[in-house]
């Protein structure tokens, strides 16, 4: 490969990466050129390492980078210049996401006129105690709006950073001394400080298997509302596999966000292996998202197809790693419900709270429980 060919075409690489969702800007382009001026362009391995060091910023993008780099390199081999190649064959597009209906809720249309909004809003009041599974499409849409409007706050914890406060509990020795040096060495005034409260991170694990179908969409609204209002939220779905949907929930509009999620999640309405999903979460994610006193909301009915003993073990691990593990269960409010299935028993034993989310009243209670759970030491079942 001629060095000039590489140099002339290398700026196509950031463009290819952008198409794969790896953001780069002009500054990266400049840095890339500087970096390539330093390495031996005759060595593909070095060129790759240099491009990777400049253009990639997270481990999750490494595989996509390598693929694009291979394509880029191959096209340099074949085509005269990349720009020619780009003109003829457009860069490969991501495969079209598969259209997957979100449970039976797919048809919830936004209201067309304002009058309808009001009618439905008042209808929400009557809907509060009704199970989501028994609602019509319009009622569910109204319920979703109700959820989006709830005030969510998983509480704050005491931070390790302080600010000055007249009535703070601790004396700020540094500031007091500083003032003393100003006032010729006399301790005239004690400066006080208090910790700055920090928002608690929230992690949402949402079961999207068949048995949860009627509740999935409302729970996604819950996830969206939390992500919008609270910010520090990581969300995952699981059925037969675990999918991180945090990024998809960022869209301001709930319906758009949920459409993104439904494209991204491959295992709607299938079976569940809760223990496997929790195990994967523990291995791959818990160290990254459960720091700093995170509250975990586990939304599932606890119908485990696998071994309940394994579920108990994984739930225990999840509980130990989190500040508080809250199990949101759509069925627990149903008349005559007892957590008798093996999976449900395992979860009851390990969750700090077991709350019902089958109805709007249930969800409102969750909001209250979260607000309470957030501060103070966690009270644990032993």
């Amino acid at each position, binding site marked *: 490969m001629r060095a000039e060919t590489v140099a002339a075409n290398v700026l196509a690489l950031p463009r290819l990466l952008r198409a794969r969702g790896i953001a780069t800007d002009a500054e990266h382009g400049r840095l890339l050129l500087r970096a390539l001026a330093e*390495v031996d362009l005759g060595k593909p*391995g*070095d060129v790759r*390492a240099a491009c*990777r060091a*400049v253009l990639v910023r997270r481990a999750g993008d490494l595989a996509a980078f390598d693929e694009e780099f291979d394509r880029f390199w191959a096209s340099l081999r074949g085509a005269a210049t990349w720009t020619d190649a780009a003109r003829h064959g457009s860069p490969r597009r991501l495969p079209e996401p598969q259209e997957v209906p979100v449970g039976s809720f797919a048809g919830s249309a936004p209201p067309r006129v304002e009058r309808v909004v009001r009618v439905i809003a008042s209808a929400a009041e009557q809907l509060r105690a009704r199970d989501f599974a028994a609602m019509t499409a319009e009622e569910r849409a109204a319920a979703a709006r109700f959820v989006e409007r709830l005030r969510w706050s998983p509480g704050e914890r005491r931070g390790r950073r302080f600010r000055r406060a007249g009535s703070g509990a601790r004396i700020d020795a540094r500031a007091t001394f500083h003032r003393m040096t100003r006032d*010729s060495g006399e301790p005239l005034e004690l400066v006080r400080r208090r910790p700055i409260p920090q928002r608690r991170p929230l992690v949402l694990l949402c079961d999207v298997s068949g048995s949860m179908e009627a509740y999935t969409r409302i729970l996604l609204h819950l996830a969206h509302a939390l992500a919008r209002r609270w910010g520090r939220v990581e969300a995952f779905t699981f059925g037969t596999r675990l999918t991180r949907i945090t990024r998809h929930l960022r869209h301001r509009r709930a319906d758009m966000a949920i459409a993104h999620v439904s494209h991204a999640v491959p295992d709607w309405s299938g079976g569940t292996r809760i223990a496997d999903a929790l195990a994967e979460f523990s291995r791959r994610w818990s160290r990254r998202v459960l720091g700093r006193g995170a509250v975990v909301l586990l939304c599932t009915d606890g119908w485990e197809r696998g071994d309940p003993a394994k579920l108990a073990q994984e739930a225990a691990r999840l509980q130990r790693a989190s500040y508080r593990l809250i199990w949101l269960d759509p069925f627990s409010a149903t008349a005559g419900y007892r957590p008798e299935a093996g999976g449900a028993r395992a979860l009851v034993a390990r969750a700090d709270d077991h709350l019902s989310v089958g109805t709007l009243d249930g969800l409102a209670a969750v909001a209250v429980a979260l607000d309470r759970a957030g501060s103070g030491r966690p009270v644990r079942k032993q």
Partner: protein
Amino acid sequence: MEGEHRWSSPDDVARALHAERYVADRPLAVTLFLAARLGRPVFLEGEAGVGKTEVAKVAAAALGRRLIRLQCYEGLDLATAVYEWDHPRQILEIRLQEAAGRAAEARGRIYTEDFLIKRPLLQAIDPAGGPAVLLIDEVDRADEEFEAYLLELLSDFQVTVPELGTFRATTPPFVVVTSNRTREVHDALKRRCLYQWIDHPTAERELEIVRLRLPEVPERLRAAVVRAVQALRGMDLFKRPGVAETLDWAMALEALGTRAVDADVLDRTLGVVLKYEDDLRHVRETAMPALVEAAGAR
């Protein structure tokens, strides 16, 4: 400390690190070389125990620079990371000056470098100290507020102390930032850096590392330990052992005077490599034969 070195190529970097008993793979050598040439910080990410911190230490030795380390934690503030005035000594000085009848002069004398406690970040850019390698270790443990400050420091390598003036590095420090990914570090910080993911080493490279680090351990034992650790990494574990554990294990077996690596000795020393009870149980109950076989394989 002997004179400062400059790296002339990625090969040169790999050689220099090897001389300091660190085995770098090619991408890491290229990244370090570029970081030195372009004056950019290196951002090292990877699981615990793959040798991220070690990179900074050996880079300092290889470059002939002093190593300055800042261990991050939540609530890390400027007084611990950058500088702080030694107020008790200042007050003492005021008293001394008063006793000598020079109270009026005291004010001007106490805000000098004599009363300034330099913390790692200021030390690293202080021209008086000479060129440095600055290791900002486990930046994911610090909070966003500190990250924002770091961003500022890494872009212009200067610190202003209002009472005293501005410190500016004559030779910018070679900066190594490490993260264990206990949270996502902000993109803005990563953008200033060259990114390098460090993975667990291949069997070949790991054996090379053990050989270089533990020349006193017999080759047969080294090879057995590397094979066993590689087998463990392939298992379904909560925490896969890092290179640090491999070295510990080899040393532990050597200390026990192990001749043959059998099920018994592996079982007794498993706690050296696996630090979670679930993982220990999993391996003891289901994977012991596989582990013994891996260790014994020729």
